């Protein structure tokens, strides 16, 4: 049974992989218990671990290999949680601390999280796929419950009473009868207590939450409004140099010749050539530009595709890597033949860029053959391995640390910058920091895959959908399945070797697949002559999906106002990664067919809400980001070059594009909490496309949407 989630996880991770390394040079676990002083240490096993439990005082265990997280209570009562997850603006430093505080019965201020430091935290695949809340959350809560029970037992032993007679609250164990009370720190008696736990522990139900479930302000918020928080790009080390990389004149380039004489003659400048990698390091960032301009390089760039031929190329080159369809049910052929209403349409999505406001940055420092790298990545352990492979050193010699990072959106899974900084630092014999320019970020990072999605459908005149055939070329399989009850289905993803380096993005292909599916649903509702909301409700029995559709329709007063040529209303919805979403967009069409989104109403349900304010922030942010993909964002390229590599040419949403945003949170305390960083984005583009159609009668099937 456990193979299903395993398979899903493997697929999930696969989708987050980035094809193609940027660089290739020619070229036991740690005894971590020693790191801890006295206090209590709880380790939580991942799901598959064989029981290896050990309590009692003394400690000194070999830890199981698949520990998911650990938690320490120090003699002074300070709680430190160690997790491989990282903070990139999605607010998990706060939401995870809330959950630990809740179960441990301590104030949130006494909790700190050590995140993404590969020497101190257990291995973790990475922070992506909205997995932190559904997986890491319960693991941390379980550890906290176990810690609380251990403390209750310790006090019970000391006081010779039953643990059940005692209460844990506010960082203390108390005996209400005798009014004896002792802090958690005191109870550990300065000894080292270690316990490895697994399995299910009784978690506090969401209905009883006091700290979890509340709008706790962002931990360390003050550091962000005062500029004190140190992102990777802000860090420095004694003697540090600044690195710059000489970029090829196009993708897939090879270096034919290099004249670096002039650069080498500059004082205090290190020039490195290693294979096709050319970089310099200099004492300050401004003077590092100069040697770069003196390098005379000749590159050979093979002819490459442009975005004009892209979609034809994707169709023509499919089939090489085809796997089983995601869903084959009934017979689409027969159902199509019998259908009273038939539709067949093709949708496309462009390559887009994450454009995190903090570009990639890394600071690398060598001590002998040991390497330490600070970098903003969503996958510290994967980056550690990338570094080890690129520099031909054992992984154990590499430590990666991830300061809270200036956003990522799925765009920072890789370690290019870390490798560049490390390579330069090795040559220079000094720490080196590399901060990518915006241009580099737009060109040498990876992209959200472009794709073509073809949908054929059949329905009865009464509005029941009977057949659904969907083929997605290149954009990805996430959320490719339909949330509607359709008896005959054939759904398949066709991977293609795309022309650009492509990888993960917020929601993966769920944005593309929702755009295609929910646009098609709108077309089908027109064809059968039904209201788009009624049509969707007629075709789904999923209560959670119906719940968000009804919630959003109520909030937006769907159907009260009719669309006119100047103003259109459109809706979309679906689910992915445990989050259920329904979105209604209201657009205003200007005289020159300009589109202005006036209002977005979105209902979102992701189980029990851990932090309503943080959740709203994520939903609003996802809606705003979704506006970019819906209306503006598109990477243009030709001959191995990106043609719009500046914010002046690659349009992202700005203040002036803001609609009124109304978020309806559906808090289901009876359901486990799911992540929310991604799914709220998926409904925006199709809702806007459907609203444009409602106003103008023009059906736009390509993202970004360009009417006229």
């Amino acid at each position, binding site marked *: 049974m456990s193979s299903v989630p395993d398979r899903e996880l493997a697929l999930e991770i696969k989708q987050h992989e980035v094809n193609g390394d940027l660089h290739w040079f020619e070229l036991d676990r740690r005894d971590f218990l020693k790191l801890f002083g006295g206090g209590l240490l709880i380790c939580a096993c991942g799901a598959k671990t064989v029981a290896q439990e050990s309590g009692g005082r003394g400690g000194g265990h070999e830890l199981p290999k698949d520990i998911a997280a650990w938690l320490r209570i120090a003699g002074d009562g300070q709680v430190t949680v160690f997790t491989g997850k990282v903070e*990139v*603006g*999605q*607010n998990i430093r706060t939401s995870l601390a809330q959950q630990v505080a809740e179960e441990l019965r301590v104030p949130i201020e006494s909790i700190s999280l050590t995140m993404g430091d590969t020497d101190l935290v257990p291995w973790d695949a990475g922070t992506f796929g909205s997995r932190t809340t559904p997986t890491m959350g319960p693991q941390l809560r379980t550890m906290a419950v176990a810690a609380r029970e251990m403390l209750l037992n310790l006090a019970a032993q000391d006081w010779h009473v039953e643990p059940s007679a005692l209460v844990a609250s506010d960082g203390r164990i108390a005996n209400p009868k005798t009014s004896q009370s002792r802090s958690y720190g005191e109870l550990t008696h300065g000894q080292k207590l270690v316990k490895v736990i697994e399995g299910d522990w009784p978690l506090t139900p969401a209905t009883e939450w006091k700290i979890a479930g509340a709008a706790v*302000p*962002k931990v360390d*918020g*003050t*550091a*962000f*409004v*005062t*500029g*004190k*928080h*140190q*992102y990777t*790009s*802000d860090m*420095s080390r004694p003697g540090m140099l600044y690195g710059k990389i000489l970029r090829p004149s196009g993708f897939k380039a090879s270096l034919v010749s290099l004249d670096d004489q002039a650069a080498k003659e500059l004082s205090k400048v290190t020039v490195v050539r290693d294979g096709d990698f050319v970089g310099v390091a200099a004492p*300050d*960032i*401004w003077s590092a530009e100069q040697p770069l301009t003196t390098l005379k390089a000749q590159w050979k760039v093979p002819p490459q595709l442009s975005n004009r031929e892209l979609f034809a190329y994707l169709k023509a080159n499919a089939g090489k890597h085809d796997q089983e369809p995601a869903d084959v049910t009934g017979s689409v052929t027969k159902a199509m033949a019998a259908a009273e209403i038939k539709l067949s349409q093709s949708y496309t999505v462009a390559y887009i860029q994450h*454009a*995190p*406001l*903090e*570009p990639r940055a890394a600071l690398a420092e060598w001590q002998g053959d040991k390497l330490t790298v600070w970098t903003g990545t969503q996958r510290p352990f994967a980056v550690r391995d990338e570094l080890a492979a690129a520099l031909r050193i054992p992984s154990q010699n590499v430590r990666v640390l991830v300061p*809270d*990072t*200036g*956003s990522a*959106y799925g765009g920072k899974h890789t370690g290019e910058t870390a490798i560049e900084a490390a390579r330069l630092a090795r040559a220079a014999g000094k720490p080196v920091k590399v*901060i990518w*320019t*915006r241009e580099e970020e737009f060109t040498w990072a990876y992209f959200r895959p472009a794709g073509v999605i073809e949908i054929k459908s059949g329905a009865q005149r009464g509005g029941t959908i009977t057949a659904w055939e969907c083929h997605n070329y290149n954009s990805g399989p996430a959320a490719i399945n339909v949330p509607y009850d359709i008896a005959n289905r054939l759904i398949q993803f066709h991977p293609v070797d795309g022309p650009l380096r492509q990888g993960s993005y917020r929601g993966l292909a769920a944005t593309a697949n929702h755009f295609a599916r929910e646009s098609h649903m709108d077309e089908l509702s027109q064809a059968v002559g039904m209201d788009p909301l009624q049509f969707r409700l007629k075709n789904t029995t999923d209560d959670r999906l119906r719940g968000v559709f009804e919630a959003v329709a109520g909030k937006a007063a769907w159907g009260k106002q009719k669309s006119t040529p100047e103003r259109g209303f459109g809706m979309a919805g679906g689910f992915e990664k445990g989050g259920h979403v329904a979105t209604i967009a209201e657009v205003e069409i200007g005289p020159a067919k300009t589109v202005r989104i006036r209002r977005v109403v979105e209902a979102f349900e992701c189980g029990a809400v851990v932090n309503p*304010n*943080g959740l709203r*922030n*994520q939903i*609003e*942010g*996802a*809606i*705003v*980001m979704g506006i970019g993909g819906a209306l503006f964002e598109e990477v243009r390229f030709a001959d191995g070059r990106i043609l719009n590599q*500046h*914010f*002046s040419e690659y349009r*992202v*949403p*700005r*203040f*002036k594009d*803001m609609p009124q*945003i109304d978020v309806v949170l559906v808090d289901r305390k009876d359901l486990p909490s799911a992540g929310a960083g991604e799914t709220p984005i998926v409904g925006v583009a199709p809702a806007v496309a459907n609203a444009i159609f409602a106003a103008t009668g023009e059906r736009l099937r390509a993202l970004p949407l360009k009417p006229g």
Partner: protein
Amino acid sequence: MEAIAVIVNGKQQRITAPPDEPLLWVLRDQLQLTGTKYGCGEGHCGACTVLLEGKPVRSCLTQVAAAAGKHVITVEGLEQNGTLHPVQQAFLREEAFQCGYCTSGMILSAVALLGSNRTPTEEEIVHAMSGNICRCGTYPRIVAAVREAAQATKG
């Protein structure tokens, strides 16, 4: 290289740098005022916004020589006697950030706006701040925070 005198957050600084070096790198790397961020280096994102004689400028496009003898305020200079600036307080209350990377630039743009217009309308806020990008999309919260700060400083 001649030293260039700049008054940063009220303190005289003598800076040795090429006169055409952007103020951004001088602030960050020489004065360790890393609250001012690099986001594009081209004037298109506003992450590097500082106040030059009270006016918002893009420090990535401002040569350090242009700041000679002038007052520069960075995000680090907003706190007075341990009290956060009303705009900073409003950003905290509204939680008008996610990753926080745009926040310094946003706050300084807002401080500049409120310096010249104490009761901006929503349209005026949007107009004044449209050069600042928040890729995390916290614009609605930022607008709310600026309005709130305007309220707080009015009386």
